[in-house]
């Protein structure tokens, strides 16, 4: 017992100050891309050809929902059109908002008043991995550790869909998970939320178009929050959840 107390004292208080202060991100972290098209010679196609996820189209229009944040486009672009910033805030409420034309990214809006009164103080989520690679799952799971302490925001992951207010889906929705995913959704009582985490769940990501997957959660269920990334940083996921609940 004493040893445990000593160990506790040595480990100290470890919960991040977020959202009061932003925790430090590594300098090589690739967050929101900043696209400056003044020097883009559209037609050069270098970024389009380098992109593994078909996230780019002519004139450096970038679909964040497909992007793996691999940085290949940034590396090949001769004019410095695409640069990845440290901005971790990426989640949107609508799929089309993730396609980055000239407007600034429209981050997710808070739920309406009624939903907020239902979910705002207590949101229970059931996580379903439907072909996810276990990185999105791991960085969702990490939110429940002492470092992030998701519980202090009233959000908790629960074991049964019957106890849940919504689903948090990862993976492109493999054919073999399609029916289990639908059944899990059906088992959640109304009103319910669906959150798609990661390029796979948002659009199919790298796996888009393969015959064994369904190109993302919104091909199967209505989605309320899109969290891009491969995988999204835990901070990106948390930011999305808190935005949805109107807490930031």
């Amino acid at each position: 017992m004493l040893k445990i107390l000593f160990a506790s004292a040595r480990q100290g208080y470890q919960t991040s100050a977020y959202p009061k202060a932003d925790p430090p991100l590594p300098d090589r972290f690739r967050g929101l891309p900043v696209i400056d098209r003044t020097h883009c010679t559209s037609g050069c196609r270098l970024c389009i050809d380098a992109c593994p996820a078909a996230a780019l189209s002519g004139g450096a229009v970038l679909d964040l929902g497909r992007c793996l944040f691999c940085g290949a486009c940034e590396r090949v672009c001769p004019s410095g059109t695409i640069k990845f910033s440290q901005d971790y805030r990426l989640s949107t409420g609508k799929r089309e908002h993730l396609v980055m034309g000239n407007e600034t990214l429209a981050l997710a809006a808070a739920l309406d008043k009624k939903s907020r009164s239902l979910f705002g103080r207590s949101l229970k989520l059931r996580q379903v991995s439907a072909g996810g690679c276990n990185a999105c799952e791991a960085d969702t799971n990490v939110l429940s550790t002492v470092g992030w302490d998701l519980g202090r925001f009233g959000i908790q992951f629960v074991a049964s869909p019957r106890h849940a207010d919504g689903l948090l889906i990862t993976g492109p929705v493999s054919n073999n998970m399609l029916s289990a995913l639908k059944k899990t959704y059906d088992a959640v009582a109304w009103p319910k939320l669906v959150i798609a985490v990661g390029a796979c769940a948002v659009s199919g990501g790298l796996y888009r178009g393969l015959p064994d997957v369904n190109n993302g959660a919104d091909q199967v269920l209505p989605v309320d929050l899109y969290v891009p990334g491969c995988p999204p940083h835990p901070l990106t996921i948390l930011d999305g959840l808190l935005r949805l609940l109107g807490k930031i």
Partner: protein
Amino acid sequence: MNTADFSFCYNGQALGLDGLPLLSPASFRMAVLRAVAEGARISALFGMPEEHPGVKAPGGAAGQGAIRLVAVLACDAEAQLAVATTLAGTSYEALTPECPQACWFEREINEQWNVLPEGHPWLKPIRFHRPYAANQPEHKPCIGVTDFFRVGGPEIHEVAVGPVHAGIIEPGHFRFQCHGEEVKHLEISLGYQHRGIEQALAGGPDTRTMHYMETLAGDTTVGHSLAYCQAMEALAGCRVSPRSLALRGIALELERAANHAGDLGALAGDVGFLPTAAYCGRIRGDFLNMTALLCGSRFGRTMIRPGGVSFDCEEQRAAELLSRLKKAARDSAGAVNLLWETPSVMARFENTGAVARGTAEDLGLVGPAARACGLVRDARYNFPSGIFRFAQIPVATEAAGDVFARAYVRWLELQRSLEFIENQIQRMPSGDSAAELKAPAADSLAVSLVEGWRGEICHVAVTDSRGRFIRYKIVDPSFHNWFGLAIAMRNQQISDFPLCNKSFNLSYCGHDL
């Protein structure tokens, strides 16, 4: 082992397809059985389409042609890999009855290529997908629908769990045959995470290939990336700079440290010992953040590329890494050693889910699960490649084969990984970190082994006459070990399943591909 039946190579070496011995199915069977009886083990056993002169079929479609079976055997003592091949026709005599470690491989061959291993005792789908072969009738199996093994008797009941489990975990189906609390048999039925990666790889390499490797099992991004790059470098005859090798080694061991720390915490959580669970959950994050310090991604995405690494580690960064590493080493010792000193934890860990050494050998287990049974089986030691040719990490083993042994092996490995990283940072060779890579050689086969944190990762790349992949075979360590978990559960309390499961902590997507 009759050496004339095999071609031999080292880890990360390419062989010409023409030079591979093509045996008759009967002598192929005899050769593999004999080698395994003499101590070799199956690293990979798979089918691939024969390329037809004139009819090139790189897209993974088998054309009309025959299926060539390829066996890659690991001879641990000799540090050599032995490759034998045969043409299978529509059926051949199964190896499994005499060689249990062939079981899942032959099920896979059957499912992918519709080649029948005659006499296979347990022939059922493994991932529930359509066969690869183009000339096969359109047959779509239904996930999870198979004839589960049943134990008879009026007092036996069946417990079905999954695919969707409690907690944030990937999907899979577990079917227990129980007598009261006691599990008589557990059958594990997977395939829910199948995304069709191997098929998508055929015809490559292309811009997507590297990213499939990074995400085929996201918690093993570095391990699988490294296995792929080693295979590509073998095919292209590329030498990787010592600095890149060191950085790759650091990334690989950081991945091991993060996952081992996470597993130790989760094991503590499964027996209700919350201090270690809480500390290790956070310490795991510290290791992931060290990987992010190197390359921006907590999982090592984009870190490793054919020919080298994409990010260098300048002096200041190395110093930062070193200081974080020392702190994490202290923190993990404080957190993990509590486990071994707490009787209530040890009472749950010891004698739970024991696998006998002989069983582990028969099943061909790999990684910490094998080393916990006393087997000296570690690709970093048996098949050293890259940095491990210059810097050795001692193999950590335990004897008991139970949950305790699997946990303790992880703890030993975690400490040794940290020592290794520290050494590497202090003695980082100077020089370039990236290199140009030539096109892969045509008509070749390269085998690449990496000791990932779960165990041996085996990649086999086979190119056609244009240097494109006619087949790219991936064997995640989980593919060897899932059956080990089923055996570990025999005669255990069903309530011990979460603990046993966590002590193996196998990959679903790495298995399902």
